[in-house]
Structure formats: C-alpha cells, structure tokens
C-alpha cells in the first residue's frame, strides 16, 4: 500500500523512478572528438563483433570471420548464418554466436561443439562471448522475448529477460549464472568474478563468489555494450548510444510507447539508434536556438559513439567519443591488439584504429 502510494506520488511529482533525469557526461566522460577523428581501418558489409588472440584481429562480418594480420584480411571462417558474437576459444579455435540462437566452437580441439539450449531455455539473442582462462565460455543472451535484431523493441517493452550463461567446453554442459537482466550485452571475466553489462539498466554488474549483481559501474549516461580486456589489467567498455531525457520520458509513457510500436516504422521511433541523420523523417537530431543574438547548436543525440577505459575497480579512466555531429556512432565492440585499439562503429559499419599510447599521452598527461 505504502509502495503504491509512493509510486503514485513519484509519478505525480516527477520524483524517484519517475524523475526524468540523465547523468551528465563529465569528469572522465567529458566529451571529445577522438573517435570521430580516428583513422578508419576498414569499412565492411555487416560487421558485428571483434576479437583478438594478441597478434591478429578477428572481425565477425555477416556470416564470415575475417582475420587481419596487419592490414591484410583473409577469411578465417565461413558459416551459414550471421555471426552475432565472437571470441577466441581458450584452447584454440573460435567461438561464435549464430543469429543469436546458437553458440558454436569452430576449430581447435572442441571443434563442432554447440549449444542451442541452456538451463532448459533456448538461446534467443546471444550477443557476446568471453573465454575464461580455465576453459569456459561466458555468454550473454540479451533477451528471451526479442531476437537479436529487435533490441530496440526489447528496450521499448522495458525488457528484463536477459541471461548470463556459462558453457563448459570440456563436457558441453551449460548453466545460467544470472537471469532477469535488463538486456545482457557484453561480458568479461575479471579474476573470480564475471562482469556483465545490463544495457537498459545503464550499468555493469559483477557476479562471483558472494557477489551477485553488485554494480561495478552504475548510472552510466549511455547504453553499454561489449567489454574486452585491455593491457595493464584494465577493460574497454563500449556504448552504442547515449541516454536522453526525451527517450527517458518516452520510456515512462506506456500508452505512447505501445501506440508508437504499433503504428510507427521502427526506424522513426523516438528511441536510441545506431546511426541517425539518414532521413528527415527521423526524430529531431540537431537544431539551434538563438540566445543574445547568437545561434547556439542544440542537439538531442539519437545515436552516439563511446568507448570507455575501466580500471579493475570500475573507475572510468578516460573515454573516447563520437559526438552528435559525428558519424562513427553505434559502437558495439573494442579490442586492443599489439598496442592498437580497434573500435567497431556498427552504425557506419566501420572499424576504427587508434594507437593506445598516443591516447594515454593525450588524455592522461
């Protein structure tokens, strides 16, 4: 009863869960244009994920995995379905998620092992894979209700059906580490813990010995995506777009959302996007207002590009941005390979290349 009254007053006064607020990009998240100014390493048809074995860069592009040694690309793997997640298997070979509904190992001693059901439930939107040192695979299954491509539907339905799974390469078993996640997208093995991104909850949480769902980073001003190890024990966390008050408002208006989802083409929803500015039918992306005789840009971002470097304790050390007026948006993966950071901007189907030492010198000195 008290809870219901609290909810009602919160909704009436715009407080608590009904406060339409968004954290600010400041401190280590202060915007810059580094991603926008980054060198374009490759432009591909349908890139989805990145992985590295320390010497080569692997890119999931449609139904194939490309291997880059330097600037030279060769096809390492060709499958029959689109690859939605990619990792280097611990004992050799590649682990891939196929259309979100299957995880399969290709090559190496466990070649051909696959999983389509874990803990009695079908894989539905498997989107990230991480190999652990002790021979397991950690997988995030974004949503149990919406397939991989319909992530925006899951957001607009306030989905909370994501799962974190552990797959044993040795015996082919699988178990559920966590469920009910607000779109699980991105996983990393951190010591004895597992970090998993909950995109719709704007946080990274840790699961491990005695720590279940403990936030590592919370209240992010963005929708986090995949995690990857960096040198010196740090982690790269990507975000495919940032939060806005407009979208937060829409997420709290059930009748509006329902009608929008029923009647409007998803490309024109008031919702986050991997890319924007393609048509005038999209919600307003940039505008200006006049203040004291000066035109000032005003840009509620719909798509954005962001990479963050996390310390092992979860502190954000620095961040790389492609701002609202940029193009390299919809960042879903970043891996560090031989001192170079490769970033996948899915919105523009580009892979960007940034020298890490130069970044550190520029941002930390």
């Amino acid at each position, binding site marked *: 009863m008290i809870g219901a009254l609290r909810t009602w007053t919160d909704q009436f006064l*715009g407080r608590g869960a009904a*406060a*339409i*607020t*968004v954290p*600010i990009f*400041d401190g280590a998240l*202060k915007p810059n244009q580094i991603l926008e100014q980054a060198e374009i390493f490759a432009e591909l048809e349908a890139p989805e994920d990145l992985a590295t074995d320390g010497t080569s860069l692997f890119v999931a592009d449609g139904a194939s995995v490309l291997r880059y040694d330097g600037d030279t690309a060769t096809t390492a793997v060709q499958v029959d379905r689109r690859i939605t997640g990619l990792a280097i298997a611990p004992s050799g070979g590649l682990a891939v998620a196929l259309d979100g509904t299957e995880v399969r190992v290709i090559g190496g001693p466990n070649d051909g092992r696959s999983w389509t059901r874990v803990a009695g439930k079908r894989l539905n939107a498997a989107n990230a894979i991480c190999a652990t040192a002790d021979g397991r695979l950690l997988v995030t299954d974004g949503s149990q209700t919406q397939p991989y491509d319909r992530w925006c539907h899951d957001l607009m339905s306030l989905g909370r059906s994501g799962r974190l799974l552990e797959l044993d390469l040795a015996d082919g078993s699988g178990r559920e580490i966590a469920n009910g996640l607000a779109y699980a997208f991105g996983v990393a093995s951190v010591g004895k813990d597992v970090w998993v991104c909950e995109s719709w909850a704007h946080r990274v949480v840790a699961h491990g010995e005695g720590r279940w769902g403990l936030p590592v980073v919370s209240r992010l001003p963005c929708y986090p995506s995949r995690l990857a190890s960096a040198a010196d024990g740090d982690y790269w966390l990507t975000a495919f777009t940032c939060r806005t008050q407009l979208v937060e408002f829409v997420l709290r208006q059930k009748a509006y959302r329902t009608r929008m989802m029923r009647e409007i083409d998803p490309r024109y929803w008031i919702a986050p996007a991997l890319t924007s500015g393609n048509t005038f039918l999209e919600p307003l992306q940039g505008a200006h207002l006049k203040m004291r005789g000066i035109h000032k840009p005003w840009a509620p971002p719909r798509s954005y590009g962001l990479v963050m470097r996390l310390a092992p304790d979860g*502190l954000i050390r620095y961040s790389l941005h492609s701002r609202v007026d940029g193009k390299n948006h919809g960042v879903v993966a970043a891996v560090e390979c031989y001192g170079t950071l490769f970033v996948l901007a899915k919105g523009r189907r580009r892979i960007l290349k940034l020298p890490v030492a130069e970044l550190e010198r520029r941002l930390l000195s």
Partner: protein
Amino acid sequence: MTVPIVELRKATKKYAGVPAIEDIDFALLPGEIHTLVGENGAGKSTLTKAMAGVVPLTSGQMLIEGREVQPQTPVEALHLGIAMVFQETSLVPTMTVAQNLFLGQERFFNRLRGIYIAAQQFLQTLQFDVDPTATVSLLGAAKKQMVEIARAVLHKAKVIIFDEPTASLTPEEKKYFFDLVFNLKARGVTVIFISHALEEALLVSDRITVLRDGKLVVTDRKENFDRARLVQAMVGRDLSQTLYGQRKTTMRPAGKRVLSIENLRMAAMVKNNSLSVFAGQITGVFGLVGSGRTETFKVAAGVIKRDIMYGGEVLLNDKPVRYLVPAPAIRDGIVYVTEDRKLEGFFETKSIADNIYLGFLAKMRGARKLVSKREATQVAERLIERLNIRAISKDVKAIELSGGNQQKLVIAKSLVQEPEVIIFDEPTRGVDVNAITEIHQLINRLADEGKAVAVVSSYLPEVMALSDRILVCRMGKVVEEFSALEATEEKIMYAAIH
C-alpha cells in the same frame, strides 16, 4: 605643495588598551584613488572608521584641508564631506532600494513614486542593474553592495571610503564599479579603497598604503609596487612559494563519483543543471552572480529546496537523496561552507569552542539531552590546532576574530562533522593573504585525503590555483568543463559570459 584633503598625525586607536592602529601618519591627496592593503587585523578598517567618525581616535590629530576636526559620528563626518561604504551592509533590509537610497533625505510630503523614479534614474546613471522597488532583504550580496555604493555617491561626499567593495561583485560588476570610481575621480572626488585583491589595487590606485599589525609600513605610488613587493610588505615574508595566485601544473586523478546532480531545477535560478563531484579531487565551480552555482550546491546540501515537481535528482554515492534541511545531509556526509559567514556561518556571540561543538552536535541524530563540556573542549582544541585558528583562547567570541579566523572557524564547524563531500562557497572572500594561503592548503589537504571537494568562487585565480577540474556555470547550468591544465582565464570567462 598640495594640502592633503584628509590628514592623520600620530593617529592611535586602542580597544581595551590594545592598539588597533598606532602612531599612523597618513595623508590623502585631493582627487586621488588611494588603496589600503594589509592582512585582516592590520588596522585598515579602524583607520578608515576613524576618518568616517565611526570610532573616535584615542590620540593623535585629524585634519581636513588643513583644519583640525574630530568627527564623533558618521553624520558629522558626512557633513565634513567623508562618506563610508561599509564591508558589512548597513541597509535597512525591510525597505526598498529607493527608500534606502533616500533614507534621511526624505521631504516632508514624501511621494513614493517620485522616489522610485529618482532612484531609477540615479541607478541608471551608475549603470547599476538594480530594481529600485525591490526589497533589500531579497537582494543578493552583490546588489546590496551596489545600493551601498549608490547611496554614498548620492550624498555627494568629497571623500568616499570603500571597504572591500568588490568582494561580492562579479567581474562584470567590478568593471562597472571601477568605471564608477574613475568617474568619481574625474569629478574631483577622492576615493579610499580597501581591498584584499592586489591586482585591483595595482590596477585602479594612484597611491597604495600598506598596513601591518596596526602600523603603516609604506605609502608609495602604484608604479613603484608590484605584486611581490605588496605581499612582502603586507605579510613581512615571501609568499611566492605558496599556492596563492599560482596556476596548477599537475592535477589529481578523479576517484569515484560521490556527488551527482542530474537535471536539477530550482525556480528561475537553476535550470536543468547537471554535474558530478569526484572523490580525491577539487572541483572548481566558476560563474557570474546569478549563474545558479551557489543555489545548485545549496540544494545538494539541503540548505534550500529544489522545485517540488520534476526538480531533478541529487545522488550521493549513486543513491538518490532529497534533503529538506541541512541536518540529514550533514549526517550523510555533505557539508556546505557558506559564502556569507556572518549571517549563516556561526553564532557570533558564542565562543569558538561553542561554535565548533554545535557543528559537532549537528552530526548527531536527534537532540542530545546532555552535552559534555570536556568533549566540547577536546573537539574545539583539536580543530583549532588543525586549522591554526589564531585567538587568545578557545573561549573568545566569534565576533572578536579577524575575517580570516572567522572563516577558519566556519570551516572547522564543517570539518568536525567528518564529511565525505565538502562544498566551499567563496572560501576566501574578505580574507587576508596569509589566511588565504592557509585555507588553500587545507582545501588541498582535504582532496589529498580523498574527500570530494567542490569550491565555488568568483575569483578566477583562486579557481585556477585550486581546481583539478573547473566547471563553468551560466544562466542556471554548467555550460563548460575544463581540466586544470587546459584552462585559461580567457577560456573560463568566455564560457561564463557567452
């Protein structure tokens, strides 16, 4: 030889036998701008108060245009042509600006509308943006100061004494003020100007007098001074190695986000403002008066309330908090060190120890039935030593302390609460150079200890000397962020104005 318009010979003023000024020979030349500088307690205010008839001299002579006078009241001094604009506002808070301007000059049949029109015209000639119909108690510190200045100008005094006139003014307002001072000079008015801001002294003065410990150290033309010589004369030692006025060359890395303000709204003052304060760092907040910086932090600390509906969120360690009064904020670890220490900072008739202990008690949940004198003594002694509060004893009343020590007392009251987030609002306003150095060192020490520190200041060199990151506020929200290393005065000021 020019006859001084005001001259003091062997002027001495003692309070309870203790000299505040001693054997001072001071000459004020007609039409000059003469700046008095010195640490708090150096005797600047006493010297000028003696001229303005606020306090009588214990011994010595005062001459106006060669004629010996002994003004016993400010009214007598005003009739002799000397007016003083006080550091502490002397306006009647319940009256309007216009009524305050014309107080004591009312005609028998007074027409309110006529006063408002006259006041409006007069304020416009001074380029002061103050509504003559506004009640003084509702004005901010800067606007009250403007009214004080306007009133002195209105009285057509031959000598106008300004005691710390620019302390509460924004850079834009300061420019207007200096234009006004130069205007007064052009009209033949002589100006005495007390200031802690040495750059101002070097900028506007014709001559500068330095006082120290109640004695006149030196009087010279401003061309013969530079900043180092002034500081040397004021404190009697070289402060060039201290933090005062120096730019930062390194910055601390940010710790975890401790205080986060999201889309805060508070009436017309704060408009959708968002910012974060991180542990182990000093976050400097700069902005002109009315930019909403003070109000934002007052809301965070529970001193004032945000909008009832859709007022935004304040988060402490990522948990939403909403304080209606400061006490729960203090218990949670947020303290606000006020910009107006005399009004909000301490109980001026209570002792140092009592004031600190009251701060200590504020941290407790609920009212204490019994208070311990011994505990109060121990707490006070610890804080007095830590902050180097200079007083004869811990039982000295707060009102008897110098400005710098009063400010340290306000900080001590806050630090005794062992806060996690400390918000300093104008921490060195009206404080002498030596105290500034000590307060800056303390603020740096707090950040080094891992506290989340926010410093709100209108003084750009202070913001730049202290801050690891600088937020600039304009029109109710943060509009720009600079790291300490990339910030320049020009960049900050540009962001604050445009």
